[in-house]
Structures are given as C-alpha cells and as structure tokens.
C-alpha cells in the first residue's frame, strides 16, 4: 500500500514555541517524590558551540517494568505501577541552553526478533532553525545490555558515546550537540 494522501510537511517551532508548547508540569515524567526518580539534565549547543536558548526537548519511554500504557503494544496496554507515570516529558531550554526532565529509568524492552533493547529514552528536539524535529536516544552508563543493544550496535562505534548519559549529582547528564565535533547521533524514524 502506498500513502494515498501526502503527509503535511514539518516546519520549525520558531523562537516563540514557549507560548504554545510549554506546560507547568512538562518536565515531570514522574511526579516529584517518586522513589528512584532522578533529573536528566543537559545542554544543547549548536555548531559554533553556542547555547541553543530557544529549543525544547520531549521524551518518551517505557516504565521501569518495560511496559507502555498504549494499545499498540502487542503485550497489552498496562498502566504503570508508578502513580502519575506519564512516560512523556517536555522541557524548553533556558538562556544557557539547559533543559531538565524528572524521570525514572525505563526497563529493558523485547524486540520483534527476540533481542533485548537496553533501557533508553527517546528524545525529540525542536527549535528555531530546526525545520523538522531531531530524534535521538538516551542510554544509561554501566548497563550490560548496552553491549548488545540492537540500535546502539548499528551506530558508528566512534559516535556511540554521544548516546550515553553520564552520572550527575542528582541524576544523569545528556548534552546534545546539534552539529560539528562530537555531533549527537540523530535518527531517521
């Protein structure tokens, strides 16, 4: 089957994205006080090393049991055992290009061909100057499953570390370099 209707093209969110896209509770994938919760923090920089102060990241992830509350998960939709788990977060960058999301580590996921995906979040990056969202993944350090993750293993080994968060004082750090040296790996989905 082919697409009978053409898709609507993407356009940039522009510099005033905050009017329409920021939520007071946006950063909270899980509510404050959730056991095991941490902050995922990072900074977005452009090809000149300058902070990207008018961007937004959105995250999507499984819960710690590796489940989604979604009808298309063939294992069945299952509400997380964590009260208030949303699976989704959004956070605009500040004047120094920093974002922060409050979340928990997702569980590993089965794949259609019997493999296991290491715990990961998927991130979309929107911003002025980005005509379409950029998609990347956040993996966690010291996860044995990273070594055999079917997505990480397809990424150029010299660039794999751009997908790995690093430990930080109150959680993990994941910087995003849009362009240039140590450019973050972005995906076509």
């Amino acid at each position: 089957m082919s697409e009978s209707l053409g898709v609507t093209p993407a356009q940039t969110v522009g510099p005033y994205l905050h009017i329409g896209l920021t939520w007071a509770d946006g950063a909270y994938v899980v509510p404050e006080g959730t056991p095991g919760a941490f902050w995922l923090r990072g900074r977005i920089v452009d090809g000149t090393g300058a902070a990207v102060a008018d961007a937004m990241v959105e995250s999507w992830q499984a819960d710690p049991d590796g489940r989604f509350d979604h009808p298309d998960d063939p294992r069945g939709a299952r509400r997380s055992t964590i009260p208030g788990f949303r699976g989704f977060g959004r956070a605009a960058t500040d004047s120094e290009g920093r974002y922060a999301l409050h979340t928990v580590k997702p569980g590993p996921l089965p794949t259609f061909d019997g493999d296991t995906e290491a715990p990961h979040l998927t991130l979309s990056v929107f911003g002025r100057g980005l005509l379409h969202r950029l998609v990347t993944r956040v993996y966690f350090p010291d996860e044995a499953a990273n070594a055999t993750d079917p997505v990480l293993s397809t990424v150029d080994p010299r660039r794999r570390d751009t997908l790995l968060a690093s430990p930080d004082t109150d959680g993990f750090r994941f910087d995003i370099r849009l362009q240039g040296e140590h450019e973050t790996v972005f995906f076509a989905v």
Partner: protein
Amino acid sequence: MTQDADRRLILPSYRRDDVDAHPPLLSPGYRSTVARAPRQPLTYLPQRLTEITGPLLGEGRIGELDHDLTRQHDGEPLGQRIIVHGRVLDGDGRAVPHTLVEIWQANAAGRYRHAADTWPAPLDPNFTGVGRALTDADGRYHFVTVQPGAYPWRNHDNAWRPAHIHFSLFGRAFTQRLVTQMYFPGDPLFFQDPIFNSVRDERARQRMVARYDHTTTRPEWALAYEFDIVLRGREATVFEDEDDDE
C-alpha cells in the same frame, strides 16, 4: 491474532516519509539552520516498541475555552475573527481520533505575546495566542481565533513572515509526531519566505495552506478556514497480508 503472537512481538509499522515530504534540515535561505542542522546523515532507526507507541495526551489538559482564543480574557481581541477547523488524518485517510492539537500564533498586529518578540506592533491585552483541542471520534478539531498578522524578521533584507498559525500534533505513536505551520491562501509574502519555501515540492507546500471555507463561514460572525493535517500512515504487516482472509 496468531499463536505466534505469544512468542513473537508483532508490531505495527509506520511508513517512512518520502525524501521530499519534509524540508531539508539544512536550508541556508533560512539562516538559523546553518549552525543548527546536523551535518552527519541521520542513522536509520527500526521502529520498535518505543517508536510505535507514544503519549496519548489530552484528558485533563484541555480547559473549556482552550479552543476559543477569542474568549480567554475579559474582552474580545481585536482583529478579524476566524474559525479554523479540519481533520487529523493518516496517510490512508483514516481519522486520528482523540489526539491533542496545540496551536499558537501572533495577534492581529503580527505580535507574539513573548518576551523575545520586541518589534513595535501592539500587544493585545485580550489575546494570548495559544489554543488546545482534542480531535473527536472522526478526527475533527475546531478553533476560534483571530487572523494573525504578518511580521518582520531579520533573516534577509526586508524579510516578512507570511501570516501563519503553528500546529503541534501527536497522533498515536512517537513516529507520527509533527509540528508544522498553517498558512493562508493567496498570501503575497510566500515568494520571499524561506521557511515556507524550505519545503521543496510545490504540492507538499500547498498541504500547509488552509482552504477558505465559505460553507462553514458563519454569517455576520466569522470567516472559516479548513486545514486537514495528514500524519504518516501504517504499513500493512506481513502477518495481516498472510492471515487476513476477510
């Protein structure tokens, strides 16, 4: 359901967009792309559980007047009152029901209620410029707002953005997420706008332009524009092809 489903995960998959469907990330006419567009090619990501699921948002996020940008303050905003309505569909023409649609826009004078927008056009105390709605069972949404004004920017000499409304859509899967802009038919500023023209294919560009809708236009009250939004559709799975004996 096949018995195999017990042991193997059979996932839906979404069609990959054509090369020309979206603007190239590096579109130098839009200067901000030059330092922000990645230079490395995108890495192919198979659609797995994280990609074929997504946030099903909306319940509890929509206030009673969120769809009516003219009734969010004590008085009515200045400008031409308009109805903007349409359907959210997938590439096969199927409705995308109960999905969150977020919009934001400049006021009638072309000014955004935003600290970074400092061009000398008036703010309107009765206009914030943000709306939210959920599509109904047929994928329909409906907003009431005012016609946004054009505004200048510094991208090139005498640069003006054509009037537009920003649209954000989730669909039902991470792969369907889309942020776009809705334009108005016959805008004389299209020719010089590098954001509109970043979409190379003329037919694709026209998909961002709303249609004036005289049937929905309400006499002595508001002009109407119809804007359907198409998110990517699903591939039929091999299993459906083999086992579907309907």
